[in-house]
């Protein structure tokens, strides 16, 4: 298993963000907040002119960045902060760096510092994810 502290994860890229997916997540989360569904509501709240992705969608992108680099890995721990918004039409990129690596009898435990960045605006989610890899 050739994983070392300091290794960069393969970036996970996604977009443009489709507002139809916000409709789906509103149903899944049972969250009718109009800032995810209605441009006029977004404008009325002074939040711009584009619908705003639900935070958990953005965290799902961040998790994908880990799963993509460690297929079959089992997430053990997530600690994250939401530091910005992802809007309809945005392109996002999740990047990560291995910050800890522990070899186990039957696999390894890897900790990664992850960032979801919105193209042209900057970070929207930052977090630490620990994943268990089996051999």
């Amino acid at each position: 298993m050739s994983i070392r502290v300091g290794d960069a994860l393969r970036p996970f890229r996604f977009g443009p963000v489709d507002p139809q997916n916000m409709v789906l997540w509103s149903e899944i989360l049972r969250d009718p907040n109009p800032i995810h569904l209605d441009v006029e509501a977004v404008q009325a709240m002074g939040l711009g002119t584009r619908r705003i992705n639900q935070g958990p969608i953005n965290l799902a992108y961040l998790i994908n960045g880990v799963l993509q680099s460690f297929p079959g890995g089992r997430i053990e721990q997530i600690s994250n902060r939401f530091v910005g918004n992802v809007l309809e039409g945005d392109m996002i990129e999740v990047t990560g760096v291995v910050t800890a690596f522990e070899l186990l009898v039957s696999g390894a435990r890897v900790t990664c510092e992850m960032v979801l960045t919105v193209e042209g605006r900057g970070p929207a989610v930052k977090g630490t994810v620990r994943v268990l890899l089996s051999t």
Partner: protein
Amino acid sequence: MIPDLPDVAGRSLSGTAFTIPPTQNARLCASVGITPADDGSAHPIYFYVATQVGMGETVAGLCVICRFDVKDGPLLGGCQVEFAEPLMVGAEYAVTGEIVSLTRKASKKLGVVDLLQYRLALSRDGRTVVSVMNSWILPREAKQ
């Protein structure tokens, strides 16, 4: 006028059971650009979906408990999650939890805010599978 902080620590958020539907997991995975796992595990973000949907309050109801109008825009600040095992499609999880704290502070960006922390857990067959601590920011007034 900003209302006084209610004493909400310890308030139960225990709710009902939540089952991860296979078709919903597939649609959720597709919506974020990933293929569903072939080992029966659900996307890990179901830690959030299952706890929010299954807890004993809606987000709006949780805001009411905190004397906050959901229309004023609560902000999800962050999550701390521990998985004892993966969440599985089709499995039923019991949702339990409670409010941990509600505190007030001054924010450089947002003015006066209340910080809400609540703990939720998903259990199956008596085992805790996932523990979550969510933090929300409740803006009380715009900074001038």
